[in-house]
């Protein structure tokens, strides 16, 4: 029973991440730089990294990215997102040991920068053009800001959930 509950929770998280992904698609992106976005869906990723096992967080992100890019009709974005998320989750799972939940926003900033690093590496390999690294500084600045924001959101969510004692691990 416990396993079924856990899988159901992961399903809810994935659905939530997908909804956030689509809400964000409706907001026009003012920045003419490939790869810059708010990344609302990463609120779920950050939350999952901190409150679930590493593979569970990775699974939620993998399903969200695959379904999201297929539904949005932008399959070419899949590779960049996947590379970014892989690096982001890998890094955050390690950082989780050193950065406690009270500083979730900080872990999220590092996660976002790692995400951008993965994206740009994938783009460089795919386009065989190292000049794309010129966009890296912009991605870092936007990643720090967006990552801080999504991290704060995840922190708020955790605080609220703990208050109403809905959380599985507490």
């Amino acid at each position, binding site marked *: 029973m416990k396993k079924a509950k856990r899988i159901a929770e992961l399903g809810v998280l994935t659905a939530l991440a997908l909804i956030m992904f689509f809400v964000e698609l409706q907001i026009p*992106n003012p920045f*003419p*730089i*490939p*790869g810059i976005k708010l990344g609302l869906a990463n609120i779920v990723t950050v939350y999952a990294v901190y409150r679930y096992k590493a593979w569970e967080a990775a699974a939620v992100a993998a399903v969200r990215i695959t379904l999201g890019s297929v539904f*949005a*009709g*932008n399959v*070419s*974005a899949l590779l*960049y997102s996947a590379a970014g998320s892989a690096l982001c989750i890998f890094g955050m799972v390690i*950082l989780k*040991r*050193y*950065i*406690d939940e009270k*500083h979730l926003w*900080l872990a999220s*900033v*590092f996660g976002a*920068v790692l995400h951008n690093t993965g994206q740009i590496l994938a*783009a460089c390999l*795919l*386009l*065989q*053009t190292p*000049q*794309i690294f*010129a*966009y*890296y*500084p*912009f*991605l*870092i*600045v936007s*990643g*720090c800001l967006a990552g801080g924001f999504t991290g704060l959101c995840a922190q708020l969510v955790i605080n609220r959930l703990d208050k109403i004692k809905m959380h599985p691990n507490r």
Partner: protein
Amino acid sequence: MKIKPFIAAAAIIFVLGIVGSIFALTSSPKNTVRISQDGKILYTIDLSVARDEEFGIKCSEGTNTIEIRDGKIRVRDADCPDKTCVKTGWLSSAAMPIVCLPHRLVIEFCEESGVDAVTR
């Protein structure tokens, strides 16, 4: 484990990002432009002698319409999902290429080859 070193590291990364962005934005343009797709060079164009024109670059996913006018180059239109390449506008910095990720197209300034003005 103390949190301060991590905050300092994040702050340094952020500042480096801002410095890098300023550098990338202020890097002055050159004359020769290279258009490549999938890492293969399609065109090398000397903008100082190129005449105004518009042409399409097709790939299996769609088309980008390139416009050259008054010695400047941009992607005027594209049927990619994000249209980032169109929004980038005229190519103005040597450090920042115009990139269309969905069509794997890159337009960038490069060193002058001196061999031919316009290569098709």
